[in-house]
């Protein structure tokens, strides 16, 4: 499948620009919300359950099994902060999660968060992927998720190099399998 064909169906806001502006707020650490509901109770905007659903949603959008929950927590931290201070954002998130829940309850009987079958969750996301909730989460989390230097090694990316003298003596032309 060509991702281009897939992507061309979408009309989205500017992920690049939004990613750049939200990044500064992204450097927030925390306990694992997925594993520890008590931690989520501290979130002033969304309920613990809603926060966990948002984390699950972000992982479903960008499902990297190699990444720990902590990576997704950092990615959604700016959104949670915005929801706590901006009623319109909170409403958008609450409504979106409710839509996901309604969808998975119909098809699988459980809330979105408690639905174990990834296929059921993915089908629920498909139903809302052209809406504002999807665009908001996608646009606001993609850069904070991938711009975490402590996660780059998991993808084989070495990151900044100038302070190490570049790659001139560190493998820029070490490929030997051709």
């Amino acid at each position, binding site marked *: 499948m060509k*991702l281009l064909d897939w992507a061309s169906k979408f009309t989205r806001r500017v992920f690049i620009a939004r990613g*750049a502006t939200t990044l500064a707020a992204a450097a927030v650490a925390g306990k694992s919300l997925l594993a520890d509901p008590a931690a989520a109770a501290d979130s002033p905007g969304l309920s613990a359950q809603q926060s966990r659903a948002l984390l699950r949603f972000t992982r479903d959008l*960008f499902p990297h099994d190699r990444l720990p929950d902590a990576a997704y927590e950092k990615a959604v931290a700016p959104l949670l902060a915005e929801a706590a201070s901006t009623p319109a954002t909170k409403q958008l998130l609450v409504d979106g999660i409710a839509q996901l829940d309604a969808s998975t309850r119909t098809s699988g009987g459980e809330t979105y968060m408690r639905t174990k079958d990834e296929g059921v969750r993915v089908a629920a996301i498909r139903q809302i992927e052209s809406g504002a909730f999807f665009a908001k989460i996608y646009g606001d989390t993609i850069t904070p998720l991938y711009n975490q230097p402590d996660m780059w090694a998991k993808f084989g990316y070495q990151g900044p190099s100038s302070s190490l003298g570049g790659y001139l003596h560190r493998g820029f032309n070490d490929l030997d399998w051709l």
Partner: protein
Amino acid sequence: MPATFDLNDSSVVVIIGSGAGGGTLANELAQKGVSVVVLEAGKRIEISDFKNDEIAMFGLFSWFDPRTTSGTWSVAKTSPDLPVWTCKLVGGTTVHWAACALRFQEHEFKVRTRYGDVSGANLMDWPIDLAEVAPYYDRAELKMGVSGTHDIPSLPINNNGKVLFAGAKKIGYTKLQATKMAINSEPRAGRAGCQQAGFCCQGCTFGAKWSTLYTEIPAAEATGKCEVRPEAQVLHIEHNSAGKVTGVVYADSSGALQRQKARAVALAANSIESPRLLLNSSSSQFPQGLANSSGQVGCNYMRHTSGTVFAIFDKPVHFYRGTPQSSIVMDEARLDPKRGFVGGYNLELIAQGLPSFALNLAPGAWGRERASVIDSYANVAGLWVLGEDLPRETNRITLHPDKKDKFGMPIPNVHSDDHENDIALRNHGYAQGEALYKAVGAKRTVRVPPFPASHNMGTNRMSANPRDGVVNRFGQAHDVPNLFVSDGSQFTSSGAENPTLTIVALAIRQAEYIAQQLATRAI
């Protein structure tokens, strides 16, 4: 020592913009003893401000002023508010450019003659040819220290380049080269040699890459004939009843309006802002916009027909290591309409750090399909199809009817519809790129749509006849003798080559012309 000129000093040449065109023109004029004031909309930063941080540098460098888009081009969907990726700072887009320094080919200056009358395109020959520009290409290459020219050694081939070349050979390509790059392959001109850091587009921390920020601009200032004013956004170019420009009005760093008088004005604000300024400088004498009797100001917007192919292999490539665009395959850059399109394309290397790769891979896509590509990041190779974009009169920059920026100036709308030639060329490039990688064992290939363009051309085009374009063979406005265009907007065609070397060559040539015109009091 940087000069300081009075706002009422009407002897100066005002240059709007400090990138490849403006920065070069400023230095060339200052070296000839001409007094120059450079008005740059962005801030002034230094090499010490550069970081190997894609997202932070994108935020620091980019031109984010509001723009709108329309048309069928994919960028209007994937990046409607940010249709181009250019810079707003002293040095302009030379701060982030990847530094491919390629010459146009002979036929690319004569597209109407060589390609014929292509329906739906606005093809026209340049009023100059390769032979005329060649000596200035030489001077540009020497000035910029272009590797692989004039006995300057080429840059070495990195891992991504090894894959590109192996695949290219397998499918019969023969024009495989280390790209001619305006990056020092060894220490030169007081700047370091390339350390293969891989962060060219985030500002070269070693200064090995040519940028006007730390070459032309300080050299111009050292003459004592050049003043650079950062955070000076020009809003209007003024003229007198004789139809000559007299100065410009700009907003300074505090937002206050200033009027700088001028003997001549050179516009080098890139291909969206330059026509925007001319259109916004309309008057009773120039009702369609300044220098726009042809109606061509803002028209013929070209960006390059582009697309990216990523390939996933079983073994590591680590394509982010080293100079991202240091190899090229030029076999398809020829003119050969049998392929189903006119114009050609180069296959240039592309590499991105993980954050950029993830962001640009497939805007809007999600789920396991997309994630699995990113999971393979270390084993990815990539090439960028860079092809000729045909000029169309209807692909154009216009002033938005309602929306205004913070200074009250109408924001630009960027309209582009792909020509069927563009689509055929891009698809050919995608297919060849995929075949190339599959020939050396790629498990999977991914087509990526065009990014917001850093190559922007054509919106004040050069023509022999004043009826057909905005400026003459020296970039001098047909309608206004002391007004010049010094950026890529003067291009009559886009070629299959990155535009910067040609912009610099034309700026060197234009400086000779302007100095001569000043000396003979022709302007």
